[in-house]
């Protein structure tokens, strides 16, 4: 019985609460930075700042790959792992069959979802990449210096969400299914709540930071 009660609690109130808190927190963080304002720039631009800003928002992550040959030898794990992790994590969040009901609740309609086999591949690759990235973070001297508790906590939470999700869909049979699902949903709630308080909110600042970067690229008339 407890498992069902817990399920109802998480599914009913906790999830909603964490999603609301997430949106409020993220909006706060975004506008707090935006409202700091910018000084005017009177230097005549050499290129097209706004067009470049939009281009960079759309393309910047792929353009960092222009350094692939130089950087790959030292940071192959990050390039490949980072790519696979983001692909897996975002793909799983938005496009697995099991989440369709959730998006249906939020959006009012069910978005298209991936076949289960693709979802499985994404889950394994995201989990594997996360593990490799975490080990790399522990042993690489540069990353060790840059890493704080925030990164480890975030990786742990994401790992828990991915792992419990995988267990629930693939392996947990019978009585354990609901427990696994509860762990999955509870850790997801904690993760969603944690995002606005952590560097996981980088996805919001990505748009701002890369927009400013692109604007500067346009002002200076360089290509990237």
């Amino acid at each position, binding site marked *: 019985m407890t498992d069902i009660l817990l399920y109802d609690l998480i599914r009913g109130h906790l999830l909603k609460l964490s999603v609301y808190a997430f949106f409020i927190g993220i909006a706060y963080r975004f506008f707090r930075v935006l409202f*700091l*304002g910018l000084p005017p720039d009177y230097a*005549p631009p050499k290129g097209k700042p706004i067009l470049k800003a939009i281009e960079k928002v759309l393309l910047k992550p792929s353009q960092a790959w222009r350094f692939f040959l130089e950087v790959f030898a030292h940071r192959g794990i990050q390039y490949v792992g980072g790519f696979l992790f983001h692909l897996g994590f975002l793909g799983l969040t938005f496009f697995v069959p099991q989440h369709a009901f959730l998006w249906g609740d939020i959006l009012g309609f069910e978005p298209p979802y991936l076949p289960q086999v693709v979802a499985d591949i994404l889950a394994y690759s995201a989990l594997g990449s996360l593990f490799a990235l975490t080990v790399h973070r522990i042993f690489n001297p540069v990353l060790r210096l840059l890493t704080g508790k925030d990164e480890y906590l975030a990786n742990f939470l994401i790992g828990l969400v991915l792992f419990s999700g995988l267990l629930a869909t693939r392996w947990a049979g019978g009585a354990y299914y609901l427990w696994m699902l509860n762990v999955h949903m509870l850790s997801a709630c904690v993760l969603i709540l944690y995002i606005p308080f952590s560097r996981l909110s980088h996805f919001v600042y990505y748009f*701002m*930071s890369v927009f400013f970067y692109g604007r500067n690229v346009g002002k200076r008339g360089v290509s990237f």
Partner: protein
Amino acid sequence: MMKVEKTEEIGEREARLFYEFCVASINAEVAAYLESCVRCGLCAEACLFYMGENISGKIDPTLTPAYKADLLREIYKENFTLWGRIKKTLGMGVKIDEKELKEQVKLAFYTCTMCDRCTKVCPMGIDTPRLVGIVRGALTSVGMAPKDLVDATNTALEKGSPLGVDVTTFLQRIEFISEEWEVEIPVDQKAEWLYIPSSIELMKFPSSVAAAAKVFHHAGINWTVSTVAHEATNFGLFLQDREVSKELLRRVLRGAKELEVKTIIAPECGHAYQSMRFVAPNLFPSEWDLKVLNIVEFIYLMLEEGRLHIKKKVVDRITLHDSCQIGRRGGVLKEPRYILKLLAENFVDSVDMPEKNICCGGGGGVVVVRDADYHRQKAFLTKAELFDKTGVKNVACYCANCMLALNKSAQEFNRDYKFISIVELVADALEGGES
């Protein structure tokens, strides 16, 4: 007379002023950069200082660009974020002492040339030079900028140039160059174009000033040099001291206005171009209506308009060193490549994309700072590796400061590269030979 202060006593007052400067420098752009760092460390692999240590078989993680902005990031957080404020209230805030400030001097003044290469590799587009610039400004404001830079800046404020070139010396050098290279250099004439050399060229590479004069004559433009605006360099940029930058640029503005100039031709000097092209309009928003071209841009324009004709190839094989402030941060990248293809039998680029070129190691004033010599030399190894990949010894440059740093480091390592000014090559190619 304005003067930059240098202090040896570092205490609570300095720490407080440093802190306040940082807080006052935060705006939406800076905050976005500080917030968005995902601690991936990829920027380390783009920074010539970090890479140089790697080549020597050592890893120094503190040379990672992201780390160079970490104190600023902490200061930002505890003033602008909820969690940071709570921590500060609980007494867990940033503590800045003498050791920390000295570390910042190393990070911002010795091991960053503000070259902008890390920005390109960073997946979040974080403009680390902008952040390092704030740290530099904060250190300058508390009298902790390196002594060599402060001395040179004060000489510039007092005498008109960091190398002590006052008006009398300027006129003597112009006369010497005119006679030695048999080229006429108009002084203080009303003209459409104003050419402002840097004192590094005037004193150490006078042939490039003569070459510039020859190019102007060939192009048939109405030009002059000025005894008021006789120095293009601006050490205020190195120190990130707004008032110093403004004072030095005021002289440029006054000189240009007196001679009714429309366009300034900035010399082969990175930060001179940066200061006049991108900084000056913001320091004099209502007065600065001058167009600014770097001399390489000018040559490109004249070639395009058919006012200059390259008559012969003047070099066999050559590669190019880009000035970061004119190139990657200034947008003059295609021009030197176009010109070099006309000048050389075989132009070998050292990078597949111009924006990826590596700094000389002496930019941002690093070449002037003796305490930074070790880091400059390490950084040069990264640069030398790039040259060696091309297998070419001739290296074209379009910044005298780069040439100075590259020559110095090459000598220290016994390397036989030959660094040549693009303007000199152009001047040679304009004379004699087949069209």
